[in-house]
C-alpha cells in the first residue's frame, strides 16, 4: 500500500493544509515496502520505537488509500539496503523548519543505511547570500542548528550564478578561502558520505554525523526557474552518484515546486528569460522518474478569481497535475456553521487504483494525527 516507487507526486494545497508536514512525514517516515531493486511502493510507517498505536492506525489508514495488488511486489524490502532521503526547502530555512516542525526531523540514531539530507535552498529566492555579505555582524543572531545535524555550505564558484555546462556548479565551503569543487571531493571528505573530524567555532574537535546533514546553498537571487532547476539537478546528481554502487532507494521531497519554478517579477535584478512553463516541470519530473526517485513535490493551489472556499470546484492547480504521476490534493471543507476541517483527496496516482473519496484529517506535532472519510454534503448550503 502506498505510492508506487519512482512516482512523482504533486502535493497540492492551500496555505495551512499541511504540505510541509506531509513532506516531512515522508522525509522521515516514508519507507519502501514490497521493494526490489526497481519495484515496490512507498508507505508511511511509525518511527522505530514509537509505541503510539493511535498514530500507527492513522498512518495505516493513509496507506490504505492507495492499495497495491500483490502482483506489484512481494512484501519486505529485499534487495534494498541503502535509503537516501532528501528534503529540498526553498520556502523555509532549516532552522525555521526545525523550530516549527522539529518533531518531524529525525532525531534518533537511525539505521546505518539511512541517509538524510536537508538542502536549504532558500537563498535562491531570498538573496540570502547578499544579506549575509551586507550584514555580517548579524550572523550572531541566527539560531544554531539542532543537535545531531551538521551544516555544510555549498556555493557557486566565485558567486557566479551562470551555470556552465561543463564546469563544476557547486563548491564545498569547508574553508571559505578555498572552496573545493564538489566534483573533486574525495569520498572521505565531502558533504555527502563518510565521517570526518572538524573543529567547531570553539575549536573543539567533533565528528561530523554521517547520516543527517544540512546542505545550505549560498547563492545570489536566481530569477530564472530553469537555472534553479539545473542547479538542483546538478546537486542531486552529485549526491545520488555517491550511492550508485549501493543501488539505493531514493526519496525526494521538495518544498515547494511552486517556489522552485516561480518566475521572476518584471524589473527584478535578474529578469527571467523563461516563464513558468511546461518545459521546466517536465525537465525535472521526467529526470526524477527516469532515475527511479520517488518524489513528493509541494505545489501551491491556484484558484480562479472569485472562487471561494466553499464554492470552488476541485483543485485548480497548474500544469503540475498533468505532468506529475500522482496528485494528492489538500484542501479545506467549510461547513455551513463556518467551521472548517482539513481534507485530503488522491486525484491521481499513476499505476495503481486508489481511493478518490475526500478524507478529513488533522495534524499535530507528530504529523498526521487523524484521518476519516469526510462527512460533507457539498450540494447543501
Amino acid at each position, binding site marked *: 500500500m502506498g505510492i508506487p516507487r519512482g512516482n512523482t507526486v504533486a502535493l497540492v494545497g492551500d496555505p495551512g493544509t499541511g504540505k510541509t508536514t506531509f513532506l516531512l512525514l515522508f522525509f522521515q517516515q516514508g519507507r519502501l515496502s514490497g521493494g526490489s531493486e526497481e519495484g515496490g511502493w512507498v508507505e508511511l510507517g511509525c518511527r522505530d520505537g514509537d509505541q503510539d498505536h*493511535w498514530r500507527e492506525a492513522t498512518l495505516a489508514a493513509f496507506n490504505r488509500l492507495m492499495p497495491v495488488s500483490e502482483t506489484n511486489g512481494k512484501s519486505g524490502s529485499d534487495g534494498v539496503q541503502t535509503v537516501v532521503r532528501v528534503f529540498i526547502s526553498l520556502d523555509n530555512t532549516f532552522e525555521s523548519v526545525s523550530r516549527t516542525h522539529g518533531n518531524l526531523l529525525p532525531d534518533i540514531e537511525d539505521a546505518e543505511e539511512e541517509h538524510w539530507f536537508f538542502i536549504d535552498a532558500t537563498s535562491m529566492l531570498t538573496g540570502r547570500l547578499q544579506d549575509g555579505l551586507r550584514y555580517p555582524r548579524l550572523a550572531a543572531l541566527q539560531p544554531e542548528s539542532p543537535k545531531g545535524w551538521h551544516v555544510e555550505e555549498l556555493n557557486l564558484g566565485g558567486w557566479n550564478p551562470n551555470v556552465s555546462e561543463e564546469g563544476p556548479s557547486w563548491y564545498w565551503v569547508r574553508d571559505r578561502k578555498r572552496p573545493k569543487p564538489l566534483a573533486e571531493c574525495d569520498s572521505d571528505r565531502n558533504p555527502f558520505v563518510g565521517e570526518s573530524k572538524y573543529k567547531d567555532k570553539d575549536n573543539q574537535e567533533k565528528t561530523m554525523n554521517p547520516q543527517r546533514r544540512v546542505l545550505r546553498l549560498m547563492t545570489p537571487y536566481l530569477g530564472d526557474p530553469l537555472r534553479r532547476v539545473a542547479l538542483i539537478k546538478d546537486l542531486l546528481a552529485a549526491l545520488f552518484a555517491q550511492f550508485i554502487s549501493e543501488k539505493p532507494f531514493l526519496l525526494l521531497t521538495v518544498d515547494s515546486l511552486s517556489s522552485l519554478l516561480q518566475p521572476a517579477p518584471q524589473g527584478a535584478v535578474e529578469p527571467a528569460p523563461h516563464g513558468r512553463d511546461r518545459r521546466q516541470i517536465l525537465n525535472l519530473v521526467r529526470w526524477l522518474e527516469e532515475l527511479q526517485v520517488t518524489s513528493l513535490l509541494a505545489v501551491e493551489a491556484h484558484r480562479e478569481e472569485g472562487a471561494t472556499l466553499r464554492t470552488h470546484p476541485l483543485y485548480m492547480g497548474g500544469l503540475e497535475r498533468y505532468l506529475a504521476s500522482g496528485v494528492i490534493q489538500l484542501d479545506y471543507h467549510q461547513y*455551513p456553521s463556518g467551521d472548517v476541517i482539513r481534507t485530503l483527496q488522491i486525484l491521481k496516482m499513476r499505476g495503481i487504483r486508489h481511493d478518490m473519496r475526500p478524507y478529513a484529517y488533522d495534524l*499535530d506535532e507528530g504529523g498526521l494525527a487523524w484521518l476519516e472519510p469526510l462527512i460533507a454534503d457539498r450540494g447543501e448550503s
Partner: protein
Amino acid sequence: MSNDADNNEDFYLRFGGVEPEESGVPLLPPFYAYLLKLSPRVGLVDIYPWLAEVIFYSDVISQEDIQEKNGRNGESSYPPNVITFFIDDHKDNIASAMAPDRNGRDKWTDYFARYCHAIWPEETELREKQQPRIFVVDTYGEFHRPEELNDRLEHGIGLNDALKSSGSDNSSGEYPLYVRSALAGAGNPARMLQKFSAIGRLQKLSAPRGNNGESLSLGKLNVFVFNSITYLTRTIGFREAMQLIRAILERGVWKPNPPERKESDPERLRDKDGLFFAVLHEGVHSNDQIRYAETFFDGVIRFDAYHPPGNPGERWIAYAFEQFPLLRDGAHSVRLQPDYERARSYLPRGGRRLLGDGALDKKILREYIFPQQDEPVRSAAPKEG
C-alpha cells in the same frame, strides 16, 4: 457485581436499572438503534429525565441471566459505557434538571461531574452497585488538540478537574467516573467523528494522574446518546447530520470487529456491542426528513405532552413505542417486547426520576395521549391520493 461474564455473550440494557414492567421499556438488545421522536409539544428540557435514566441509572444484564433467571431475582448487573453527544446543549442541563437540591449549584463549575460522582447520599448506594462509564462529547468549551484529547481520555481528566475547581477533597484516589471532550463549535461533524474515534480506541480508564488508584475497566455494553439530530441539523444541515449518525452507527453499533480479526480487542470500547439513542424534534423537520431519519433506526419511541383529565394545571410527558426490532428469542416475553397499547408518563420537572416513588402512571392509554396520530409506522400503508 460479578466480573466473570463471557466476553462473547450478548448483554442487554435495562432501562433505569429496573424491570421492564416498572419502566415500560423492555430489555434493549445490542446492535439496534432507537429514535426518540419528540412531538412539537415536548420542549427542549422535557426529555432530560428520560435521558438521565439512560445515562445515570441504566445497567446491563447478560443474555444468560435473561434466559436462565427469567422472572427471578438475583441477576448480575454490569455497568454500561455511556457515550453522549451534546449538540448545542450543555451536559450540565441534564444533571441540573434532575438535581433534588439546587442550592449548592453555584459551588460547582461542572454540575454533571457532581451528579456522576453521586455526592448526594441517596445516590451513593446506586453508584456502588454499578458505575456507568460516561464519556461526554459536548460542543461547548475550550479547544483541545488531539493529543490533549487522548491525554484527557486516558487519564480521566475532567471529573477530577471539576472536583478540584469545586474545592472538593474527594478527588484524591477516586476513580474517574466520566471523561469529557469539548469541541469548539457545534457545526463540525468531522471533528465530532474525530472525538468519537478517539473515544472508541479506549481500553480502560486509568487512575487520575498522580494518584495510585486502580484503573477502571470498561463496561459491558456501549450506549450512545445523541442529543440531538435536530440541533445538529440547525448548524450543518440535515443530510450531513444523518451522515454523521450513519458513521456512528456503522462503527459503534452495527459492525463490531469479529473476535478473530487481528485488530479486534475485546477490551477496547469500539469492539464492544452497542446500542444507540438519538433525539429528533418532529416540529422542526419535514415529514420526508422524519421518515428518512426513521429508516436509520430499528425502534421509534414517541414523546408527547398532555394534561391529565381533571387537572389541567399539570403537564406530563408520555412516551410510547411506535416501533421495535423483531427479536427471535422470547418475542412474547414481557421483558423483551414493548407494550404498544400503553404509554408511560412522567413529570418533566422537579428533579424526579421516572421510576419509583409512584411517579409512573400506567393508566394513560395510548389513544388518549396521541389522539391524532396515524397508525404506527410498522404497519403504516401508503395512503391514496
